């Protein structure tokens, strides 16, 4: 009885409070962590991007929400020169920057903002290159932009030209990434004049659907709808990030109606969410792949037949059950199915320990002992590497291969696994940056990556020729064909055992409408409504 009375009182209290704010629509996102800052170009974490690039900023091109397709953003259109070295963008006119209590813009978005946003990252002598302690422009560097980009030039107020050092088809996709968010040069100038440059990372001004109001560290971030947003004003009035790191607590808050959205529900809670009439649980395959990379430079793993035999001994279904608990899908290709050019015609290696054992004997390999490296951290593409390694250990034991499982601290693991003469096969994975197949195939399997991100240390001429050709071709149909062929070569040569792609679940209240799961893992609320 007391419970019911209290609940009623709370409901009434909430109702009056809501009434007090003139029926403003407030959407509460129970975010999984605190943003590191609000200048997305300084960081690489999705949590930070949700709070900055996905809500406050726009880019020249935008990924269509829910896909890896590229749409016009702050640029209305673009042209690529015949040699593939010059990209000319026509900018959208009449785009307004946010007007807040800490900044009022006097002009619309124009070419100066674009040039400023990139040159601050590119030019080491730029006044903003080191604007706050330890500025590293990590993603800009990680995508090799300093090597790729020669200059960014203003042609007129609404035309900008990007000049490259070499043709690179994935360039357009790079410009849709978080680091390529367009910041206001006028705001930056004001901050510089006031001697408060580091505020660019604390109090953002962008052109995005939401304007920043306040951040209470580790607790709450508040945004308001940007009334003059160029795509049209968002349907919700206030966007609130309630930072809630523990997944069980997020679930409770969602159930209690304290928030509308839980970005990362616990696998254990999925059934309860499905059965709750107040909640919904959309799902999508993640833009990632988890793999076991052999060291193809070390015998007997330099023999494709040995690798193929081991692949046939991996029971992927057992891994999906034991490690992913239903939140994964077996991987047959090195790129996830949400990426264009995914070759669905390829058949996966069958799980067949007997055939695998025979193949090993044919290759002249007996009494094989090997190491498998298990990552010390949880990742979407591998929620429990230790467990995964154990499953593979028992699978390999069935074909007479003895496995020793090793692990290191994460930074050390990443470093040591790069060694060309590394002993053992490495469990690792990758989450896509820009939705371009090149971002998987060239980064993870290209010859340039040997001794680096190519953990299989695999350099195959046939494969390399295909991906290099695709890199400099701007025709998407032709690129698709080349990548499909590259996947055939990959499957035949088997530098990895492709294990799984994660399946992403988002838990939300029934009244949430218009949310689409974005393959990049971002949470984008500009089209969201509450009914």
């Amino acid at each position, binding site marked *: 009885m007391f419970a019911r009375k209290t609940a009623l009182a709370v409901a009434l209290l909430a109702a009056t409070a809501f009434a007090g704010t003139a029926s403003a629509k407030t959407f509460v996102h129970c975010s999984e962590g605190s943003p590191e800052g609000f200048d997305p170009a300084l960081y690489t974490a999705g949590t930070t991007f949700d709070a900055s690039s996905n809500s406050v900023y726009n880019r020249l091109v935008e990924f269509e929400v829910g896909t890896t397709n590229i749409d016009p953003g702050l640029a209305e259109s673009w042209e690529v020169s015949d040699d593939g070295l010059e990209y000319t963008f026509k900018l959208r006119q009449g785009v307004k920057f946010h007007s807040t209590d800490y900044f009022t813009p006097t002009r619309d978005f124009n070419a100066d903002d674009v040039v400023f946003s990139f040159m601050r990252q590119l030019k080491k002598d730029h006044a903003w290159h080191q604007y706050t*302690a330890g500025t590293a422009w990590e993603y800009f560097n990680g995508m090799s932009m300093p090597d790729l980009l020669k200059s960014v030039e203003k042609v007129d107020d609404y035309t900008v030209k990007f000049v490259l050092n070499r043709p690179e088809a994935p360039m357009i996709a790079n410009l849709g990434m978080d680091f390529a968010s367009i910041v206001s040069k006028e705001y930056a100038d004001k901050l510089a004049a006031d001697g408060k440059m*580091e505020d660019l990372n604390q109090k953002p001004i962008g052109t995005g659907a939401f304007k920043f109001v306040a951040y209470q560290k580790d*607790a709450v971030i508040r945004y308001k709808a940007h009334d003059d947003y160029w795509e049209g004003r968002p349907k919700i009035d206030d966007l609130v990030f309630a930072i809630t790191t523990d997944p069980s607590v997020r679930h*409770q808050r969602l159930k209690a109606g304290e928030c509308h959205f839980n970005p990362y529900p616990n696998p254990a809670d999925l059934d309860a969410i499905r059965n709750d009439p107040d909640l919904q649980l959309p799902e999508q395959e993640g833009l990632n792949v988890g793999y076991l990379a052999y060291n193809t430079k070390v015998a007997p793993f330099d023999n494709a037949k040995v690798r193929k035999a081991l692949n046939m001994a991996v029971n992927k279904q057992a891994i999906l059950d034991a490690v992913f608990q239903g939140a994964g899908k077996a991987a047959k290709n090195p790129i996830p199915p949400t990426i264009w050019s995914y070759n669905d015609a390829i058949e996966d290696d069958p799980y067949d320990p007997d055939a695998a054992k025979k193949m090993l004997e044919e290759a002249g390999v007996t009494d094989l002992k090997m190491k498998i490296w298990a990552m010390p951290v949880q990742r979407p593409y591998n929620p429990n590497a230790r467990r995964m390694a154990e499953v593979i250990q028992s699978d390999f034991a069935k074909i007479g291969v003895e496995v020793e499982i090793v692990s290191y601290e994460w930074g*050390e693991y990443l470093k040591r696994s790069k060694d060309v003469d590394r002993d053992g096969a490495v469990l690792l994975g990758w*989450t896509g940056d820009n939705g371009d197949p090149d971002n998987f195939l060239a980064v993870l399997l290209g010859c340039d990556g040997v001794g680096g991100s190519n953990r299989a240390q695999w350099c195959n001429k046939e494969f390399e020729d295909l991906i290099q050709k695709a890199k400099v071709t701007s025709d998407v149909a032709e690129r698709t064909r080349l990548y499909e062929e590259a996947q055939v070569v990959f499957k035949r040569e088997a530098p990895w055992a492709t294990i799984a792609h994660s399946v992403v679940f988002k838990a939300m209240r029934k009244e949430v409408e218009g949310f689409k799961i974005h393959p990049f893992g971002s949470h984008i609320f500009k089209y969201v409504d509450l009914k």
Partner: protein
Amino acid sequence: MLAFLLRRIGLLIPTFIGVTIAAFGFIRLLPGDPVLLMAGERGLTPERHAELLKQFGFDRPIYEQYFDYLVGVLQGDLGNSLVTKKPVFEEFFTLFPATLELSICAIIFAIALGLPAGIIAAVKRGSVFDHSVMSTALVGYSMPIFWLGLLFIMLFSGLLGWTPVSGRISLLYFFEPVTGLMTVDAFLSGQPGAVRSALSHLILPTIVLGTIPMAVIARQTRSAMLEVLGEDYVRTAKAKGLPPVRVIGLHALRNALIPVITTIGLQVGVLLAGAILTETIFSWPGIGKWIVDSISRRDYPSVQGGLLMIAVIVMLVNLTVDVLYGLVNPRIRHQR
């Protein structure tokens, strides 16, 4: 008294130096390179790696780094966070009020319940009350905080709907922090219902964080009281016909309080350790959660700054406890 105080403060200086070394060394003893962790799976070239190490000053000899750090500390500069790029000092004081508010509530809760329970259990030794208090205290002491917190949330917030799940105040209320203590700020804001909301958010975390100290205080009070109650002067006091309240409250309790105050002082460290878990469960934006996050990111300046600040606070609390001893018990103050 002054000499006593000065002696105590003098002892703090070597402790402080030791703490700076420990805080500085501890995080560096952990394997892991902050630059590599920042880059993640994407990795970075050796040149870029060296460039970033240089930028952060991590390429210099360790003693030089320590010396710079010490000079900074003495000038009140704890450096900037590698992650947020903001001064560590500022970060600490943004978050500390949240931990302070929760810890004060928890220690009040622990003393308010633990002290009387311990006294009564001692006076009624062997009674049903004694047994039930002591077994409850044992359960409370062995309770894993994380589990207790989730259990409370599921029961009181989920099932019964009596308390909010987590956070410091309902999201409907929004005002600029003045003191950082949410209850005080809510009062200052003048928004109707804000104080009530802040208080209701404090209930569960207070109980969860206060449970272990409460159990410890109850047990300590009981055993200290039992010892004192057997003393001759208590028998004398009883024999000369003083009312039991006076015997227990004045003669026994005052003498039993020394070990209890020591225990309460030591609980400050326990509270800060417990705060790490409690803050995580209740999405409480305090320093415990911040330090854990900083450790996993190898954010050296934040970790060493945060640990140092906590150590200083514990040292100051213990100093206060020492002074309190003197007030409670003149024998200590006059010791050589």
